[in-house]
């Protein structure tokens, strides 16, 4: 962690969590780790932000939780994407990709047009 990690913009956390959980049921700790790994430590989600966010997504009906045993025989609250969550994820990913493309077009016009 030589460079400070990126600040998460509002709204980006939800899609990161949903995308991560879409790979299979996992608990909060694992979600956190995977986000860091996948972003090569550019995104570091603090626990104080992650856990309330999980509960919020659960309230919205995008995640479903269950207590399950982990590989080491420990109980953890495991999250899973619901059908509604899948829909939302697909929708938001589409939006994000357009967003990123548009940003790129504006920031580096030549590369984008070629």
């Amino acid at each position, binding site marked *: 962690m030589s460079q400070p990690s990126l600040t998460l913009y509002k709204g980006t956390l939800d899609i990161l969590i949903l995308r991560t959980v879409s790979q299979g049921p996992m*608990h909060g700790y694992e979600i956190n780790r995977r986000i860091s790994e996948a972003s090569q430590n550019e995104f570091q989600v603090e626990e104080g932000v992650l856990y309330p966010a999980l509960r919020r997504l659960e309230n919205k009906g995008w995640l479903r939780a269950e207590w399950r045993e982990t590989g080491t025989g420990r109980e953890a609250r495991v999250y899973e994407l619901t059908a509604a969550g899948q829909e939302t994820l697909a929708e938001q990913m589409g939006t994000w990709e357009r967003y990123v493309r548009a940003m790129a077009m504006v920031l580096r016009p030549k590369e984008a047009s070629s």
Partner: protein
Amino acid sequence: MTPLGPRRTHLSGRRPDVRDLSVEESVDREIEAHIALLTEELIAAGWSPDEARAEAEQRLGDAETIRRDCRSVVRAGDRQRRLTGLAMDLQHDLRYAGRSLRRSPGFTLAAVLILSLGIGANSAVFSFFNNLLLELPPVSEPERLVRLFPRWEDGIQFGNLSPPEYHELAAQAAVFSELISETPIPLSVSFGGRNERLWGAVVTYNYFSGLGVIPHLGRGFSAPDDVEGSAAVAVLSHGFWRDRFGADPEILGRTLSINSRPFEIVGIAPPEYRDANAGFEPVLWAPFGQRYALMPGNSYLDARGQRWMAIAIARLAPGVRLEQAQAACDGVIAQLREEMPEVYRDQRFVLLSLVDSTLHPELRGTFSMGLGILWIVVGLTLLLACANVAGLLLARAAARQREIDIRFALGADRGRIVRQLLTESLVLALLAGALGLLGAGMLCRILRWIPVPADLPITFRGPLDSTVVLFTLGISFLTGLIFSLTPTLHTARRNLMTNLTNGFPVGRRGRLGVRRVLVAGQVALAVVLLIGAGLVVHSLYNLRQVDPGFEARNQLVAAVDLDLQGYERDEGRVFLNTLRERLLARPGIEAVGYGQVLPLYGLGGHRTGFRPEAIDLPPDFRNPAVEFNLVDSGYFSAFGIPIVRGRGFEQFEDEQPLRRVIINQSLARLFWPGADPIGESAWIGIGGSGFEVIGVARDVAYARPGESARPGMYLPRGLHYIGEVSLHVRTASDPAAYLSTVQNEIGDLDPTLPVYNLRVMTEQVRQALLPARLAAIALSAFALLALLLATIGIYGVIAYWVRQQTREIGVRLAIGATATEVLRFVLKRGLVTIGIGLGIGLILGLLMTQAMRSLLYGVGAVDLPALAAALLVLLTAALLACYLPARRAARLNPVAALRVE
């Protein structure tokens, strides 16, 4: 989803975490798991367990904050879910109710109609009650306003002030920041050459400013307006400006002819303001400085004895309590008593909070009594409607029992079903409330057109404002709860297992019991209302029979006010003499007489003191206030009042100020019981001593028919001219044929003079009975409605019972019972219920008689005609209601009956 299907309940709202962990536990464990997982990983990476644990906790940061944030997110979610759940349930219940009510339109229509009659009647009565007794006028800080009255021990309770008294009280600046006086007066206002008699008010200059009423246009009054000789100005009411001047914005500065004098219009009152007194709606207000122009024919308006200032309203100075102001008033009276012990011996000044008496307290008693009785009647009607609809609901519940049982069986929970049934009832009640409000609006509009049989500027206005709508909403909800309580609980309490197994229920006897109680209640309420109607009708009948003491047939009556028309005394005399001559010259007119007080108009005459001079009265004897009337020589023959002793007035007494008086029988009995008063001499308050009693006239009902006789006297018009005249014309034949004659003769003499109350005397008597007649009509209507509802209720429960007993009746018929025996079997069942209702109704009816007696005429504590009529009508209707299903039972074919179910 079908209406029968079970539904997941949303009511609990909280979605329990797996294994029913509480929110706290769930969050704590999740955080704990996080720490444990991290610790494990660190240990795997070579940390010592203790260090790993410490490192994990440290990396997590402030665990307590995380927990708190998680918990609050979960709780917010729970709340949200609960709300959505409720909204969804409500939506579902409403849809279900709508569908269910649409499926049985007959039931829905009947229930809504029955309830709307009850609710509408209550809303209408409330709107009057609200307008006359509750609503505060739109003035600033009404809670600081008080009414001020002079009160005489054993005498007038709410008297008037004279100007000197007003000024003495207004000077109490320490307790009163304002003392406002207002006096309602009839005015002659001219429009396009025609004069019209309308009610206005003379007010002190601080009327608008002191009440805090800001004119819609122009200005109110200021201190110079109260000074004699100031310019004549007036402020018009908003309604008058709108109706008569088309809300002309250029009105200010124009003149209006009032009592034949020009008044400049300087202001228009705000639209929402009618007056500080409930029920009084003057067309205009004019200041104290114009009192002589506004009340012509009075030359001593400023004397201490001239108590004409009818309404006094004070604004308490900041921080002053009513008791302090009362003490200041007591101080004023104490000082006056010292200076003028004769005048102020028995007098006090009394303060009354305006909030408690927006309606003038003199009227308040009568109105609240009448409205109170009316409210009892409409309240009972509503209760009866509730009982009736509850009966309908129970019958309906029986029909839907299977549907509800299936829903129970499919797992619907009890609370849901109760809520659904309640929703259905509330929808019914609210529909009925809306319909009732429409009906109440119509009723209020109709009632507004009914003339008040008194020369009083009282307007009945029951506007359907937001308060009334709120009241209706509230009472509809309450109604819905009341009528649905029994049936709903009954349905929900049922044991699931009773019904599905076989078609023949165990629990029905119980429900029939409830329905019988409801029917008995309806009978009782109907009996009470029938008795009430009977009492009022009986009282009206008595009033019609009562002899008013004068000959009402072949007589015309009318009134003119020559003072308002600007006639001087001599002009007035000439006018009246000419009119009399011209009328007497017409064939068929036998007598013409003038008085001052219009008879049978709700008000008695003016009052003054009377004392025989030759009788030694005890020193503490209080002179009775005796009503007097100024009459001419033609009065007694034209009005048809017999002179029982002595003689009437002669024509010469019309012109000369002779000290003669004719007394009535009551006054004669008071001072000369058993003796002959003719030739005796008396002192009279308005005339002084030396009045010779020349005749005794028969007692007549002067204010209203059926009133108890009061001491009264007649003074000759020659003694004191007054331009306010009642005209009596006796005709040889049908007086209606002479109405136009009288109108034309007056019009020939003065085309602009307004003639009011021109009627044949029998019509005047009828008009005076209008309140009694309206009460009789209203109560009879409610009683008939009650009777109808109760009859339907009885029929419903008996018919239902017969259907239930088909098998038993079949058995009886099969083993040889005759049709008559079956008839008796069914009738007995019905009559027991009805009998209980009748008994309760009779007891309540007797209590009601007590409550109503003071409003009735010639009705005893036990009014047999009313009781008998009520019982007879109800029994007839009830027997009919029982007989129809009983006859059907008696005609049953036993074989078919046994095969049923």
